[in-house]
């Protein structure tokens, strides 16, 4: 079920009413309702893959309980690796099987050996990369004794399949989300209103910004050989806003919907396009995934400890794996490698934690230096996104070559001034609220109340009027 569909517009109020008016007196019933609603939400797409979620849930629930009672460290390790292998096994098969097979065949044929192997017609289960990581975090935390394993199967199922964030995150940690299923939730009006605002902002990002940018980005990327360098630059910028609006929009809707049901999810995007360096960008882009990799991969590898080569190796591993997580294509790996290259110089010179504060804090505008740094970081990001969006490496290279040609200085064949104005409006709203959790969060000062209401109205009507006539799925569903 898509968040921006009529199905969801009917589904959400029904679940909301049942949750707060029918099941409100019984915590178990509320959790059971969440599981049922989540399975319906997921099964709407393809009910056959519900078995995968159920299997993962049962395996990790059982292993969690065993991990608690088991004292033998070796046996505990075996239990942990069972969970890792089961979860990553599913992920590997559904997401990477054909990729590895094709690459093996290519590699062997390079050495003159022809291998006959048929690739399988595998459907990638929506959200598998997200819920796999979420359940893995549970087993790892229980293994590390950071978390008490749950005895409540329904609560655990709710945690694994929680519908707002099931298919495209944020990837929640068991330490944050699971305990919320144990405690009684009370309806909080102001929290619900705030949730609605965040949903509205998410819809604006997705429907008005991302879907409209997608139309142009698709035209330009799909016919890149026919356009001048200046148009290709615009295409890359449109994709930059498409992916941000699409993914952070989904996260906003997910977090807002969770708030309607009394849950608090962690912030997943913190205005990444205002970053002054690439380290700041990665602290504010897809935070739930970056921190997951940091805690469960980077730190176990040694993190920033050890010699320079160890540091370089660890940085490359984390960025390459992060790229590969996005999809079975070399373009994602190159995208990850490119980000590692951006990150390394500031990391090795210990400048990666220079910009921990909010940009231009307590000021209306950034200073010139900050502005230039923001532009530079944005430019580097746009460049990297070309690899992310391109069909293959060849396409990305020809796209970049065409950008750096004399046609870069020609007039752009496509110049949707209306869309560019909307993007500027969007950036303006994000800028004035950059110290908050999301762009449309309520102004704290009472004197801005009318302005706040006006903004809400503009956003609401923009969604109604400026929605794209083309149905565009959320990009991150394919990951």
């Amino acid at each position, binding site marked *: 079920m898509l968040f921006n569909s009529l199905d969801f517009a009917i589904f959400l109020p029904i679940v909301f009413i049942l949750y707060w008016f029918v099941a409100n007196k019984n915590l178990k019933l509320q959790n059971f309702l969440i599981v049922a609603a989540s399975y319906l939400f997921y099964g709407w797409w393809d009910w056959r893959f519900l078995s995968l979620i159920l299997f993962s849930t049962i395996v990790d629930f059982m292993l969690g309980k065993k991990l608690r009672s088991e004292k033998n460290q070796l046996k505990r390790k075996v239990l942990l690796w069972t969970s890792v292998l089961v979860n990553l096994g599913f992920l590997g098969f559904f997401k990477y099987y054909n990729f590895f097979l094709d690459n093996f065949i290519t590699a062997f044929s390079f050495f003159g050996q022809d291998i006959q192997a048929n690739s399988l017609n595998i459907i990638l289960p929506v959200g598998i990369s997200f819920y796999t990581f979420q359940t893995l975090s549970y087993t790892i935390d229980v293994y590390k004794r950071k978390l008490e394993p749950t005895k409540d199967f329904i609560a655990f199922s709710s945690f694994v399949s929680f519908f707002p964030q099931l298919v495209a995150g944020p990837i929640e940690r068991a330490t944050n989300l699971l305990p919320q299923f144990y405690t009684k939730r009370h309806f909080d009006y102001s929290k619900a209103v705030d949730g609605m605002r965040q949903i509205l902002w998410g819809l604006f990002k997705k429907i008005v910004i991302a879907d409209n940018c997608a139309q142009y980005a698709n035209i330009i990327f799909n016919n890149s050989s026919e356009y001048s360098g200046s148009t290709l630059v615009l295409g890359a910028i449109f994709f930059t806003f498409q992916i941000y609006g699409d993914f952070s929009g989904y996260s906003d809707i997910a977090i807002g919907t969770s708030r309607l049901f009394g849950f608090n999810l962690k912030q997943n995007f913190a205005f990444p396009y205002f970053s002054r360096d690439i380290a700041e960008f990665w602290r504010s882009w897809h935070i739930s995934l970056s921190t997951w990799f940091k805690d469960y991969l980077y730190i176990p590898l040694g993190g920033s400890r050890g010699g320079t080569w160890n540091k370089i190796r660890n940085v490359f591993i984390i960025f390459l794996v992060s790229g590969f997580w996005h999809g079975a294509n070399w373009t994602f790996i190159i995208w990850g490698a490119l980000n590692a290259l951006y990150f390394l110089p500031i990391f090795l010179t210990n400048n990666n934690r220079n910009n921990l504060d909010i940009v231009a804090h307590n000021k209306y505008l950034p200073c010139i230096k900050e502005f230039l740094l923001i532009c530079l970081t944005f430019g580097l990001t746009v460049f990297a996104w070309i690899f992310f969006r391109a069909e293959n490496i060849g396409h990305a290279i020809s796209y970049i070559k065409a950008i750096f040609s004399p046609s870069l200085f020609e007039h752009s064949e496509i110049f949707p001034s209306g869309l560019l104005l909307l993007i500027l409006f969007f950036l303006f709203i994000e800028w004035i609220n950059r110290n908050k959790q999301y762009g449309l969060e309520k102004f704290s000062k009472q004197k801005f109340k009318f302005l706040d209401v*006006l903004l809400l109205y503009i956003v609401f009507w923009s969604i*109604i009027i400026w929605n794209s006539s083309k149905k565009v799925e959320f990009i991150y569903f394919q990951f």
Partner: protein
Amino acid sequence: MKALKFILYTSVFFLVGELIVRIDLEYDLLNNSPHKIEVKIEESELRNKIEKGNFIPNPNQTRILVIGDSYINGGGISIEKRFSKRLSNLLEEEVLILDISRPSNSTLDNYNSFMFYQEKFKPQFVFWAYNFNDILYSIPEVNSSKKPKILPPKRVYKKKIGVKKYVSQLYSFSELIRYTSSNIQKQLKFQGIVMPVGEFYQLTQKTYLEKNKNWIDTKKKLNTVSQICKTNQSKFILYRMPEFNLLNHSNLFHSLDEKFVNYVNSNKNITYYNGINDFENENSDKFILSKYDGHPNELGHFRIAKKIAKYIMVEKTRTYNNIHKK
């Protein structure tokens, strides 16, 4: 005070909406009006030749005349991928296709085009793509020698006052209400629900009635065309063009189709081809340019062309066999 505040905020809410709709209507900021399908009309050498009277039909050639509106003309898609080009490529032997379809053509326009070109082009096949809204046109008035009827004196009605008048005034003023209501109708239509108001409802439920002047006139024109085709020994294929964004909601056209089929069954000179059958159980998303618009995309054109090419081949073989039997 609270009531005043409520009124103020509600008014601002609608004013903001009104303003944004008006900005959009004026500047079309995102250039994506749902009904906007780009139409390019191809320059045709053949058409020019026929219009100038320089065309001499080759007896060994199969000539096909294509008639219709933007749906069959190929609004929104490249010329090479349009129906007539596809059909010409699919029919391997030598065929000559004269595509006189034009965007916004009604039955009256199609009829006039047919009358003009058929005489000079002498087609063996007339392919008429009929769109359910082709029926909307104003029937030309015919001078009558009859004395004008004396009408009874107009009754003077009291001026409407109250809510009804206020609502109608508001409707005529507010672009927002017009925009919202038409969009709600579109969204509902896409879900297979039609409100008993508006043009679509009128067209599908009220226009194809026996007493409707346009339907009577349409039938007359189709009868004339079929008669001419019979005289010229050409095959008249009346193709029912599907509304592609509503492929999954054929029930919306049930009443209209029933009337249409009743009519074509009564006229043996018409070969009726229901295009909807070729897209049965298909997802409309595959064949549309935009979900709010019924124009077929490239794939839709290709599918129609494939089916019609097959149909024409069968017809030609049958005609050939009949001649040889005799």
